[in-house]
């Protein structure tokens, strides 16, 4: 810390120590307290300057921001929601999105299970149908074969 740097801090950040850069604050405080040359410089050149910055800081504090109590509610009211959320809100007013998310996550395995189960059973039915058609044909051939064997046996007996 030197006089030039201290002056630069004062001009940029003002007279309040809490506004000075945190990395240099302690050093700047010690500089003002301990350094004789700084004290002399302050006395000779900076005192008026420092006073001006103090007054300016006080003046700046007069700039109060307008308070708008409705802002919080307006932000929450205007949050964009997904189409599913808005549908659920329409369906069940006051439906909370933080409830349906785990609910959907919980029912998802059930839905997937039903879909897989339905598809699997449809496949099995198709197979069964195919097999029963094959069996029918086999049985038909078998009976025909029996008839032929009975004829053959009759011929033998004759």
């Amino acid at each position: 810390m030197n006089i030039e740097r201290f002056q630069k801090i004062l001009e940029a950040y003002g007279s309040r120590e809490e506004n000075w850069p945190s990395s240099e604050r302690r050093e700047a405080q010690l500089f003002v307290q301990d350094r004789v040359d700084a004290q002399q410089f302050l006395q000779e050149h900076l005192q008026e300057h420092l006073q001006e910055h103090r007054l300016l800081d006080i003046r700046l504090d007069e700039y109060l921001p307008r308070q708008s109590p409705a802002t919080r509610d307006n932000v929450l009211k205007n949050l964009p929601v997904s189409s599913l959320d808005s549908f659920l809100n329409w369906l069940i007013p006051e439906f909370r999105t933080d409830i349906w998310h785990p609910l959907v996550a919980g029912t998802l395995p059930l839905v997937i299970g039903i879909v897989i189960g339905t598809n699997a059973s449809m496949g099995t039915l198709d197979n069964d149908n195919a097999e029963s058609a094959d069996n029918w044909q086999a049985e038909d051939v078998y009976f025909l074969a029996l008839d032929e064997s009975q004829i053959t046996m009759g011929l033998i007996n004759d």
Partner: protein
Amino acid sequence: MGLDEPDLVRKSINGDQSAYQLLLDQHLSSVSNFVMRMMANTAEADDIIQETFIRLWTHGDKFNPEKAQLTTWLHNIAHNLCIDHFRKFKRLVEEPGTEKASALAGPEDKAIQADMTATVQEAMMKLPERQRSAIIMCHYQGLSNKDAAMILDVSVDALESLMARGRRKLKQMLLVDGQLQ
């Protein structure tokens, strides 16, 4: 509670409104003060504040806690929205204070305070936008010089130069012979 801000932001991205409301309650006042001072307390400030927090809801995934604190990220969004607004409606910014006078009419002390606020506000609005931003961020908002420099996309040296020039102009406008006006 036991949840830090990055956790709350993650929950908020996933649609958790209670996490979002906690973040809103933590940052609304600070961001609101920043925007109000940047925008000279005009009605447009409300829209910018709302838009800033809607971005937190819709674009929270862009927040990187390793790069910046949430307050810095929100100030950055708010600052960019203010600058966009100034560029779009330049004339409105050059005529500050009209709405203010009617909004704060009331008891005598309120009127005096409004008058004091209006004087400083008028001086602030005469500053170039970057000087005003730098002073508001460091003097009023308590942002560190590094965070303010990051938001303005300048070096810390350049930030200090902006603040020094801004304060010099404010002194000329607000102080007469080193005294309060």
